[in-house]
C-alpha cells in the first residue's frame, strides 16, 4: 500500500521529500495561527500532517527500494554536508518518521471534538499552530543528520509541547505547575545534550553525525569524547523519560488536554529514544569500551528498574491517565532493555516495541479522550460501568489494554516475544523473569481498569454518558485494528524494525 500511494507522487516532489516532510508543517504553522476560526486551523493541520504522512511513505519506499536499506542524503538548501545541514534518511529514520506522521495525522483528525470541549474558542487556532510546530520538531529530530540541528529541532518540539501542556489549565489548574516543571527539566535535558555535542565537536571539529562517526574512531581514550557521551546520554535520557529522569512525565500527561496527552505519549518519548539509539549505535559504536559498560551498567539496570518500579506505581494510581503515564515509563524500560542487549535482535525488539507501544498508548489515550468528552474526569470511579453505555469506545480501549499486557494475537505480545527471545539468545534469562513479572503487574493495573469498565455498576448513574463521536471512533478503531493486525501478522512492522536495527549495525559508517 505504501508503494502504491507513493507511486502517485511526482518525481520532482519525491526528490525533495525529506525537506517537504518537515517544511510543510513548519510553514503551515504560522498560517494556522492567523486563521479566523478553529475549524479552518483544524483542516490546515490535517492537511499539513497528511502531506507529511505521504512524504514519509515516499521516503520509506525509496529507502526500501535499495537492497538492505538505502541511505538518502539530502543537502538542505543545496549546501553540501559538512558545512551545510544534511537530512539523512535510512531505514531507522524512515520507520520513525512513518510512525510519527501516522500518529500525527490520526491525532489531527480526532482532535477536533476533544479540542472544542477543552480549549477556549479564541485559543483554538493558536493551539493548532503549536501542535504543528511540535509535529515539525519531532519530524525534524527524526530526519536530521546534523547533531546540532537535532538540538534545535528538539527544542522546537519541546517549547511547543510546554505550551500545549499548559493549555490544559482550562480543565485543571494543575496543568500549569506540570508545564513549568516539564519546562525546567526538559530545558536542562536539552541543554545537557547541547553541552555534549559541544564536547564532541571540540574533539572532532564536525557536527555531521555520519562524519562524527568516522572521526570519533581515532579518538579512543579522549576524555572530552567520554564526557560528551555522558552529557548526551543524560540529556536524551531526560527527554525519553529514562527511569530516574521521568519525574516530569506523569503530571504532564495527566493534566494536559487529552489530545495532547495522546499525541505526546505516542510520539515524543519515542523520538527521544530514536535519538538515543542513533547516538549509541551510529555516532558512537560498540567499539567504544565505555559504551559497552554504559549499556550494561546504566541502560539495562535503569530499564529494569523502570519496568518494576513504575509498574508498581501504576497499580496504585486512582486516575487512569496517571496509571497509563506510569505504564509509559515502564514501557520505555522494555525498549531500553532491548537496546542494551546491543545485538541486532535486541535492538530490533526494542524498536519493534517502540512502534507497538505508540500504537497501544495512542489507542488507549484516544479512548480516554473520547471518555473525557462525554464524562468529565478520568478517575477509576468515573469509568465504572462505561462498557455498557459506550461499548465501541471501551472495546477499543480493551484491545489497547490487552495489547499493553501482551496477550497473544496483539501487537504487545509480538514485541514482548521478540524481546524475550533476544534476551534468551543473549543468555539474560533472569531478565526474562523481570519482563514476565512486569507484564503480570500490567495485568494487575490494566485489569483493575477493565474490571471497573465492564463489570461494575456506574457509581453515579445520573451523569451523562454516551459513545464518543465518530471523529474520535474512526481513528481510534484504526489504531485498535492496527494493534490486532500487527499481532496476527506482525511481518510488516517487525520487518521495519529489523531493517532499522540492521542499518544501525551494518551501515555504521558509510
Amino acid at each position, binding site marked *: 500500500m505504501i508503494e502504491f500511494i507513493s507511486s502517485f507522487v511526482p518525481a520532482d516532489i519525491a526528490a525533495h521529500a525529506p525537506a517537504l516532510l518537515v517544511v510543510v508543517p513548519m510553514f503551515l504553522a504560522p498560517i494556522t495561527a492567523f486563521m479566523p476560526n478553529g475549524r479552518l486551523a483544524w483542516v490546515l493541520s490535517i492537511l499539513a500532517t497528511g502531506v507529511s504522512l505521504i512524504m514519509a511513505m515516499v521516503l520509506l519506499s525509496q529507502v526500501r527500494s535499495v537492497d538492505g536499506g538505502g541511505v538518502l*542524503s539530502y543537502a538542505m538548501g543545496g549546501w553540501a554536508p559538512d558545512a551545510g545541514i544534511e537530512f539523512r534518511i535510512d531505514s531507522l529514520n524512515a520507520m520513525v518518521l512513518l510512525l510519527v506522521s501516522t500518529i500525527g495525522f490520526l491525532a489531527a483528525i480526532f482532535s477536533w471534538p476533544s479540542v472544542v470541549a477543552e480549549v477556549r474558542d479564541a485559543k483554538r487556532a493558536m493551539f493548532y499552530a503549536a501542535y504543528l510546530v511540535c509535529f515539525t520538531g519531532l519530524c525534524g529530530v527524526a530526519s536530521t543528520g546534523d547533531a*546540532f540541528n537535532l538540538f534545535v529541532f528538539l527544542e522546537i518540539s519541546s517549547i511547543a509541547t510546554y505550551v500545549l501542556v499548559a493549555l490544559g489549565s482550562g480543565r485543571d489548574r494543575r496543568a500549569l*505547575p506540570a508545564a513549568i516543571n516539564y519546562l525546567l527539566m526538559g530545558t536542562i535535558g536539552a541543554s545537557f545534550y547541547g553541552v555534549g555535542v*559541544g564536547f564532541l565537536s571540540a574533539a572532532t571539529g564536525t*557536527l555531521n553525525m555520519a562524519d562524527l562517526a568516522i572521526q570519533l574512531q581515532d579518538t579512543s581514550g579522549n576524555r572530552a569524547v567520554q564526557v560528551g557521551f555522558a552529557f548526551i546520554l543524560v540529556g536524551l535520557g531526560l527527554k525519553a523519560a529514562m527511569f530516574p529522569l521521568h519525574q516530569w512525565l506523569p503530571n504532564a500527561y495527566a493534566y494536559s488536554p487529552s489530545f495532547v496527552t495522546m499525541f505526546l505519549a505516542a510520539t515524543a518519548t519515542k523520538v527521544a529514544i530514536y535519538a538515543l539509539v542513533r547516538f549509541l549505535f551510529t555516532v558512537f559504536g560498540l567499539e567504544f569500551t565505555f559504551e559497552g559498560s554504559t549499556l550494561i551498567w546504566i541502560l539495562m539496570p535503569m530499564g529494569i528498574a523502570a519496568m518494576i518500579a513504575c509498574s508498581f506505581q501504576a497499580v496504585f494510581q486512582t486516575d487512569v491517565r496517571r496509571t497509563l503515564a506510569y505504564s509509559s515509563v515502564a514501557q520505555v524500560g522494555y525498549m531500553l532493555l532491548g537496546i542494551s542487549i546491543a545485538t541486532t535482535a535486541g535492538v530490533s525488539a526494542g524498536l519493534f516495541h517502540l512502534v507497538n507501544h505508540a500504537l497501544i498508548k495512542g489507542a488507549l489515550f484516544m479512548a480516554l479522550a473520547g471518555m473525557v468528552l462525554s464524562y468529565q474526569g478520568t478517575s477509576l470511579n468515573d469509568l465504572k460501568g462505561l462498557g455498557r453505555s459506550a461499548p465501541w469506545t471501551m472495546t477499543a480501549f480493551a484491545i489497547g489494554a490487552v495489547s499493553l499486557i501482551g496477550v497473544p494475537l496483539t501487537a504487545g505480545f509480538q514485541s514482548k516475544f521478540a524481546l524475550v527471545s533476544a534476551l534468551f539468545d543473549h543468555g539474560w534469562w533472569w531478565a526474562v523473569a523481570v519482563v514476565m513479572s512486569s507484564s503480570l503487574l500490567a495485568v494487575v493495573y490494566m485489569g483493575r481498569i477493565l474490571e471497573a469498565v465492564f463489570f461494575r455498576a456506574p457509581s*453515579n448513574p445520573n451523569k451523562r454518558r454516551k459513545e464518543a463521536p465518530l471523529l474520535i471512533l474512526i481513528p481510534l478503531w484504526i489504531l485498535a485494528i492496527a494493534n490486532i493486525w500487527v499481532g496476527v501478522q506482525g511481518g510488516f512492522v517487525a520487518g521495519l524494525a529489523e531493517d532499522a536495527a540492521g542499518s544501525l549495525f551494518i551501515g555504521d559508517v558509510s
Partner: protein
Amino acid sequence: MLEFILERGNYWAIIGLMMIGLYISFAATNLIKRLIGLGLFQTSIILFYVSLSRIDGGTAPILFGKDYGKSKSHDKAGDYGAEAAEHGADAAHGTYDAAHGYGGEGLENVYSNPLPHVLMLTAIVVGVATLAVGLAVIVRIREAYGTVETDEIREMDLEVAISEAASEAEESRAGAA
C-alpha cells in the same frame, strides 16, 4: 599543577556558572528564580561554545587584507544560486560532492572558528523562547494560584487532591448503597 589550572581558567568559570545555574534551578522555591537559574545555565553553555571557537592568535572571523581580495575573485555573484540548484537535484539522488567544504586553506591570517558563534545565535533564540514561555506560564500560575512559590503550590494541590479523594470515596459509597 597551578599552570594546568590557570590555563583552563575559562573552563573553570564556565563549570562554576553552570553548577550555580543548575543548583538554582533545582533548589529555589520561587519559580522566577528557578527560571533565572535556568537562564544562567544556558548562558554558561553559550560561553562554553564561544570559548571553544577561540584559536591562539586568531582574530575575528572576517576576511581582511590579502584574504579579502582572494575570496572576492573566487566568489562570483550569482554563483551560489546556480550551484545550490544543482546540489538540490544531486542531493536527491543521494550523491553529493564532498569536496565542496569550506576552504580554510590558503588564508594569510589566523581566524577564530566562526561556526560555534553561528550555532550559539540559534541557542540564544532558543533560550529566549524558553524564557518567554516560562514567564508566560508563571504569569498564569500566579493568576490561578495567587503565588509563585513551589512549596505553596504543592500544598494547595495536595489539599485539592485530598478533598477529591474524599468526595470520590463518598460517591462510590453512595453508588454501592
